């Protein structure tokens, strides 16, 4: 019987201070941690995936209004944030590199710089959301189709003005503001209501996706902060740096989500001509 499953001596060997008791080697521990993080990110992909699926379906169903609505987002702010986030990924990669080479001081520093970039991102986002609020893009209970059409009108007026201007004619004729509002007052048209609702769906998805993304960043700050603290304590070494590497994977994931969100939300309506 015992011939079938023999046993090896537990080599009472090298008990590295960072080796948890249930692992045999540091390498096994590192592999398990990294694979664990990848598996977690897979879950995250599906978590965001539900939202992306909803987005894809409504974008397909209501493509005209989605493009229209997308034009109300501020591409400049979105682009700025994209650059900031990519920079933060760079600093994160540097942090991981430093932890691998045993440079604890700079591991900690790069991590803190990463948080700083993240905070900048959220700062920009804060002002952007505030602006969105002021121009009545909030899709919540007080969403008003009227506001939406109001907006549409103002934009159309501006476009026509520009067009007239570029044609060199000083005069421009567009319908009186009051008329447009009356024409498109939700009480006046099924289509008007529908289109306003479609735009509302866009903004709903915009807020859901960007706030879920922001939430991931907040969680990231806490984790990065903890790991930065340990890095300053000299907890990581070329033998043992998987926490830094894993937080790096997480942060890059958060970054990549944004890389998808930016074109889908901001650039959607930005055709060449606009």
């Amino acid at each position, binding site marked *: *019987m*015992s*011939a*079938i*499953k*023999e*046993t*090896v*001596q*537990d080599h009472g060997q090298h008990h590295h201070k960072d080796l*948890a*008791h*249930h*692992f*045999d080697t540091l390498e*096994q521990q590192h*592999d*398990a941690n990294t*694979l*664990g993080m990848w*598996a*977690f990110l*897979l*879950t*995250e992909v*599906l*978590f*965001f*995936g*539900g*939202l992306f*699926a*909803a987005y894809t*379906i*409504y974008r397909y*169903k*209501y493509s005209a209004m989605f493009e229209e609505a997308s034009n109300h987002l501020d591409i400049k702010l979105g682009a700025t944030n994209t650059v900031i986030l990519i920079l933060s990924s760079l600093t994160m990669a540097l942090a991981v590199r430093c932890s691998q080479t045993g440079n604890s001081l700079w591991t900690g520093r790069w991590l803190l710089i990463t948080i700083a970039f993240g905070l900048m991102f959220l700062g920009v986002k804060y002002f952007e959301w505030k602006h969105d609020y002021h121009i009545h893009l909030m*899709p*919540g*209970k007080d*969403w008003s189709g009227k506001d939406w059409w109001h907006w549409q009108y103002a934009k159309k007026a501006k476009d026509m003005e520009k067009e007239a201007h570029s044609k060199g004619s000083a005069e421009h004729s567009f319908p009186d503001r009051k008329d447009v509002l009356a024409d498109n007052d939700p009480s006046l048209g099924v289509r008007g209501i*529908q289109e306003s*609702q*479609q735009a*509302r*769906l866009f903004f*709903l*998805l915009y807020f*859901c996706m960007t706030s879920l993304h922001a939430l991931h960043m907040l969680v990231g700050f806490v984790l990065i902060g903890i790991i930065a603290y340990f890095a300053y304590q000299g907890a990581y070494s070329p033998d043992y740096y998987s926490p830094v590497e894993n937080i790096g994977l997480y942060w890059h994931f958060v970054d990549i989500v944004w890389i998808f969100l930016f074109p889908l939300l901001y650039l959607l309506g930005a055709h060449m001509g606009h």
Partner: protein
Amino acid sequence: MATVGLESKTFEKFADVVGHDDDLNYLNHDHSVLSWLFTLDHKRIGLLYLVTITLMFLLGGALAGAIRLELLTPKGDFLTADTYNKAFTAHGIIMLFFFLIPSIPAVLGNFLVPLMIGAKDVAFPRLNLFSYYLYFAGSVIALTALLLGGVDTGWTFYTPFSSTYSNSYVIVMAVGLFVVGFSSILTGLNFIITVHRMRCPGLTWFRLPLFIWGIYATSVVQLLGTPVIAVTLGLLGVERTLGVGIFDPRLGGDPILFQHLFWFYSHPAVYIMILPSLGVTSEVIATFSRKNVFGYHIIAFSSIAIAVFGFIVWAHHMFTTGISPYAAMVFSLLTFSVAIPSGIKVFSWLATMYGGSISFGTPMIYAFGFLGLFTIGGMTGLFLSTLGTDIHLHDTYFIVAHFHYIMVGGAIMGYMAAIHYWWPKMTGRLYSEFWGKLSAGITFIGFNFTFFPQFILGYLGMPRRYYEYPDEFQVLNVFSTAGATILAVGYLMPLVYMPYSFFFGEKANSNPYGGSTLEWTNTTSPPSPHNFEKTPVVTEEPYHYHAKEAAVVSH
């Protein structure tokens, strides 16, 4: 071929292969309450789950009792329409999310995965404890929702009723499910990494016990499916609080999108419930037939196939919603294909038993029950995957019977088989075989009495989820309620004789059933806190009974 006589000798031979029963073990090495509440030991965490899910099972069972009592008569005399809705919703949610999904993975998976693969613990012990507390918190939130007044949407939360019209505590319940969902995800993640990275020397993938394959496949489904329901419930909550219309047709949304997202998780979820039981059955049948499992590889792969196919059949729950007929045809075909791996397993088990030296221990009786009931459940699934018949049977008691045959007859029977099979390992004690067999028999009979009439009721057109029904259905409903009473007795018995055996039962040796996997051959009953005295080295496939029996004879 081994004879019965040889078998008992075999058992003696297996006894005390390793260690002594009075050794310090994981149960008695520390008695303080805190040592249990903050334990990182996978075995203790398994027991924490066992206690908690048993309580949830009792609660869910009580609600089932209320439902069956109401349906005893055609008129609504015990519950109001509203309470009835809340009762079946609470029953479904508790049984599925708080009992069945965690049952085998969280209790036995936690206890067994490291033992079966020769590891000291799961890959992430702290995460494991955290998952338990997430489960606990989710349960508390769900119970709060029930105490506040309950939820009346059904466990399926269909919109726009759940998002707009229902006046019950949908959001609180959704939060509870969200939290418990993450417990499920993290448990699955832990097992996946454990199986990948913690196997002992020599334990290649195709030397893994089939239970591990089952748990592995389950974990993959948990990891990939659960986040989708989490975000769906999140959107439901957003829609309900902000009055937006992502699923509300009045506001441009699409209620069918909710169903797609819901079933994208919830169909795979039914495989989360059944795959572990399939794994248990393979173990029990091999041990109690004393034979190598017939078609080891194909059983292993069919678990993976079920997990994969499970993700591409969800729309069979939506044949009557007006989805495109072409889509419906494709989903119908794909659904049929799920039956193939399930069928393969059943045939492999039969072939395993064929020519084996079968003994009828309690776990085996439960496994027999599993075999029959799972087969009926699966076969009736084919009626439902057929587009034409589904139109007739959808939302009737036929559906209720179908899934209870699989989930109660299949999954819970498998769970009971597992609890009985590994009880001596978990507690170091033997329960009474007499009471065990009796409970298995009573459960089987009670189960069929309860649910078989529901096939007929559904076929005759009785819809599900109503608290009243036409007089002509009463006879069959009385049968069903009477059966439920018997079933309840079958389930309550283990709650007496198992705890009894824990304190007063005969001491078990390390391998009372002559199992051939590491948790039997290389550890004591109950195991020591660190599982193995020495890291095992595996040199063989898991179920080589021929070789072993021969070795015993030649001694």
